């Protein structure tokens, strides 16, 4: 199959889909859903309140659905390309949990109240430390080493988060943190968008700059060096790009796992398995997936709204197991 021919159309289709889902996201909510619901809402409420609902409640949610989904998809694709490992993902290797720990500390100490910027910065700091640790421990070692290191670091960060909750004297604050950790983009405001988007965009640029080198890295590190790749520069781009974008996501939305695992896996065959091409495709598909999941949690009415992070984990967990099973089979063959 000639993948060159399909690459640009694929990106065009994904862009269109993301746009459609973005608009759909604006049209879904408790105040009125769909064309008829929107119509009814428009007739019933003040035009000012109508525009307020759209601008202040639904728009931030749709924007965050797009940016966070794109960040997670892009970071997943880049990590997989860099570590040359199809199981690498910000959540699986513990980056999201570390970012959550950083954010929880910022919330717990009240730092985020004094300085809102502390929330994303602490989350980004947390992910920086973990990616650095993972790189040092697992590097480009085997799949097993990477996953084990991720599990160990995840549980350590989880334990530290529990410790913070344990030490919290205010049970309501703890409950709030627990719910926040589940991962959601409900009831976020434009200020959340302003707080996170600049970081994510910086992260995207850093990750995108590594794209071409990721292709060459698939030939192995020495060949990449022989072709003029500066390994420490690439490491900087990937580590800081992932930490900044995923840290900013987690600071705003809590832990939303598995997007960075599922999306690159689905996109890979469509882009001829080329790591560089996987990046834009995964970013767009990640945005689509998260927007779609966020629309679903609003449409599925089971009394209380499902958290986005819970849904992605429910889909992603079994998917992850399936992926390991398939890798095992292909290794045996």
């Amino acid at each position, binding site marked *: 199959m000639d993948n060159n021919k399909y690459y640009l159309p694929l990106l065009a289709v994904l862009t269109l889909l993301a746009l459609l889902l973005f608009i759909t996201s604006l049209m879904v909510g408790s105040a009125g859903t769909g064309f008829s619901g929107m119509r009814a809402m428009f007739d019933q409420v003040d035009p000012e309140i109508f525009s307020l609902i759209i601008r202040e409640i639904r728009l931030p949610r749709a924007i965050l659905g797009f940016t966070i989904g794109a960040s997670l998809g892009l970071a997943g694709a880049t990590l997989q390309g860099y570590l040359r*490992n199809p199981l690498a993902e910000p959540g699986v290797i513990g980056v999201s949990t570390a970012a959550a720990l950083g954010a929880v500390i910022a919330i717990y100490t009240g730092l985020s109240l004094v300085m809102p910027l502390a929330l994303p910065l602490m989350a980004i700091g947390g992910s920086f430390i973990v990616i650095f640790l993972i790189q040092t421990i697992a590097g480009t070692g085997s799949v097993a080493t990477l996953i084990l290191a991720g599990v160990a670091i995840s549980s350590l960060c989880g334990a530290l988060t529990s410790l913070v909750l344990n030490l919290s004297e205010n049970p309501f604050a703890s409950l709030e943190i627990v719910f926040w950790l589940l991962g959601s983009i409900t009831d976020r405001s434009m200020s959340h968008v302003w707080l996170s988007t600049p970081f994510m965009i910086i992260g995207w640029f850093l990750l995108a700059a590594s794209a071409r080198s990721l292709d060459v890295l698939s030939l*192995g590190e020495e*060949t990449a060096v022989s*072709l003029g790749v500066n390994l420490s520069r690439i490491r900087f781009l990937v580590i800081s790009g992932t930490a900044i974008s995923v840290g900013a996501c987690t600071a705003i939305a809590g832990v939303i796992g598995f997007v960075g695992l599922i999306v690159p896996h689905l996109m890979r065959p469509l882009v001829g*398995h*080329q790591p560089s091409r996987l990046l834009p495709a995964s970013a767009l598909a990640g945005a689509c997936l998260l927007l779609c999941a966020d629309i679903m949690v609003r449409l599925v009415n089971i009394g209380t709204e499902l958290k986005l992070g819970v849904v992605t984990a429910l889909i992603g967990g079994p998917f992850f197991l399936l992926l390991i099973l398939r890798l095992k089979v292909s290794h045996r063959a």
Partner: protein
Amino acid sequence: MKLEADNITIEIRHHKIINELSLSFERGELVGLIGPNGAGKTTLLKAIIGAEKYSQGQLTLDGVPLKNLSPVERAKTLAYLPQESRIEWQLQARAVVMLGRFPYRRTFGPPSIDCERAVDNALDAVNATSFSSRSLNSLSGGERALILLARTLAVGAPLVLVDEPIAELDPYHQIHVMDILKAKANEGIGVLAVLHDLTMAAHFMDRLILINNGSVVAEGVPKEVLTKANLEEVYRISPRQEYPANTSIALPWKTKNVDT
């Protein structure tokens, strides 16, 4: 264009892998780097491409220290084919060859016409055009080796370093690969090839450099290097030797300790 290693010493964890070694090769030459396992052949190649540090001595290109070259300049001058060729993703064969054009490509955007042409030529040079649109993992070992060789040639470098290019190939592909390297040398490219097959080395190489324990033991035309004494001392084998038409064929026949 001439690459010179002058008194190079490479230490890995305080262990001297290469010990005050000097060698040179230039455009148009097909040079075989031979020696037993652990002699330091691969380490030396890695030092030349900049993937291994050396603690002493100098590597120069036409008298200019390699260290003064930018990574991209070095990449355009020296192409490298590693011994281990695991590729993580199921890339299309042509896309793999295109990776050789990395030093010439910008961060974003499609490859230039020059790049496409270089890839076409490289595929043509190894007779791999017919299966270049297939994915790499669907190819046989021989076809895969040809694609990886094409990747190395696609760089368009005047000097090429290849590490055991025929180690895992059947006789046909071994000779095919050696023919390609010979043709490239005749076109004016300098090729330094690490080889284990002494028969192939004797048959195809203009010059052999025999190294052991990180130092050059012998150097010259195959006939001078592949002597019984050298093979016994360095390889610990007794060869069975034939001397057809001005060359020398050394067949590894038995270990030195047995019945000598």
